[in-house]
């Protein structure tokens, strides 16, 4: 492992827990503590606590912050109420995706945007370029930790630590006082389960992590690493930047049209996206069920012997007990009779609706 990888405030905590550390987007992060499958199943049945402190956070403040957000991001943000959060895409003029983000409206004129770790630098430069003259832009990444508690037991566990946490509705957010400091609690996540994300000052991360772990342990909540985070989000059909989203993939191709608002022309990339919506995207993101092998990113999707697309992500789905994959495939291609080239072995792959997994409510 490279010695130059950045460390989250929970680095020592992960080492104490014997986590296997890997480098991800320039950060040294826990891949797994025990087993990806075990951690995955814990999140589906009880709960898992994740360190996501590698993610970036930037605040946009001031009367024009909403105008800046609507220019930068594709979703319908003007109607977003204080104390609510919304997913969206940040696009280039070409319509290609620079990042996928969640925008939290914390106060009337104060928005926080959560960014992917690998994109923070380019995102910040872009946001400053387009919003810096109109509103206050502050990078909060360095002093902000992010702990996610996900799973059916999440509300019970967090309710013990934060008054009223269980009453927070999905995609709601609220500032709370935790160990004497202000933190942002949100009912959001990246696993397909109920759960919370807690943005807090780095100095409080270890204490809060331990408090959540202690409160959750009797209910079966365990620490979960990036490995489980990936299998969980894949089952839930959630895109990962660098896989389902990239500069050469549009949000419409990635199946995220519902996060591209009606008056999209007022956003950067909006003209392109409006035209693309008019004629229909050239490629579609499909769910695949490859037979007897794991198709991974880059593997070719075939219709007969013709290459019609590529796998963007694939894994073994612990919940389904079989391989699953997402793939970007030519829109005019057939959706029956597809197969995947897994290192020279051609494996049939049924097309299925995304997501692969929907939680029981």
């Amino acid at each position, binding site marked *: 492992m490279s010695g130059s990888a950045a460390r989250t405030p929970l680095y020592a905590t992960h080492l104490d827990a014997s986590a296997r550390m890997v480098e991800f987007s320039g950060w040294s992060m826990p891949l797994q503590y025990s087993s*990806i499958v075990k951690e995955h199943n814990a999140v589906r049945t009880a709960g898992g606590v994740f360190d996501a402190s590698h993610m970036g956070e930037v605040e946009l403040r001031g009367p024009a912050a909403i105008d800046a957000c609507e220019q930068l991001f594709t979703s319908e943000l003007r109607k977003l109420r204080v104390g609510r959060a919304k997913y969206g895409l940040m696009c280039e003029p070409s319509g290609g995706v620079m990042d996928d983000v969640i925008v939290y409206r914390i106060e009337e004129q104060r928005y926080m945007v959560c960014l992917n770790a690998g994109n923070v630098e380019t995102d910040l430069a872009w946001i400053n370029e387009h919003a810096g003259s109109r509103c206050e832009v502050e990078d909060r990444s360095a002093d902000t930790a992010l702990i996610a508690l996900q799973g059916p037991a999440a509300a019970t566990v967090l309710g013990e630590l934060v008054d009223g946490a269980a009453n927070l509705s999905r995609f709601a957010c609220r500032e709370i006082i935790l160990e004497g400091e202000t933190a942002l609690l949100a009912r959001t996540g990246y696993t397909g389960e109920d759960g919370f994300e807690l943005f807090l000052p780095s100095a409080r991360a270890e204490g809060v992590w331990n408090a959540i772990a202690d409160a959750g342990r009797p209910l079966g909540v365990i620490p979960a690493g990036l490995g489980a985070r990936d299998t969980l989000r894949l089952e839930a059909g959630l895109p990962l930047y660098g896989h389902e989203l990239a500069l050469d993939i549009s949000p419409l191709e990635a199946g995220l049209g519902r996060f591209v608002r009606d008056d999209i022309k007022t956003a950067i990339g909006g003209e392109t996206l409006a035209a693309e919506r008019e004629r229909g995207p050239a490629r579609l993101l499909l769910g695949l069920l490859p037979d007897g092998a*794991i198709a991974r990113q880059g593997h070719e999707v075939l219709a007969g012997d013709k290459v019609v697309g590529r796998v963007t992500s694939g894994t073994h789905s612990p919940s389904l007990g079989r391989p699953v994959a997402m793939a970007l495939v030519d829109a005019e291609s057939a959706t029956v009779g597809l197969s995947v080239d897994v*290192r020279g072995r051609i494996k049939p792959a049924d097309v299925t609706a995304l997501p692969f997994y929907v939680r029981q409510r």
Partner: protein
Amino acid sequence: MEFPDDVYYTTEHEWLRLEDDGLVVVGITDYAQEQLGDIVFIQLPDLSDVVLSKDEQLAEIESVKTVSEVYSPISGKVVKVNNDLADGPEVLNEDPYGYGWLVHMEPSDDDPTAGLMSADEYRDLVSEGG
């Protein structure tokens, strides 16, 4: 981590056990299974094409996170493959030196374990970081 004394080890994290009938059992070590994580697929040689040279691909082991090739530690003929692994690949995580064996081979060399490591030597290799 387990390092049983009754097998020989390779630098590629495979083990070999000499059987009384002259056959050699081949598998991957406890260290190897731990590095791979949850194993979900094991591709073993087709028994119709069974003569392998040393370092030829013997198997492909796929975990949730990654895929890894296993190269034949010896030259010889594969005479038996562990078909139980198709239905229960997790056995390789649970019992790498026992029920998680991969193949039985008939070695073409007189001394198939020449140059391989003892348990102590392999333990040293792994503790240095593999």
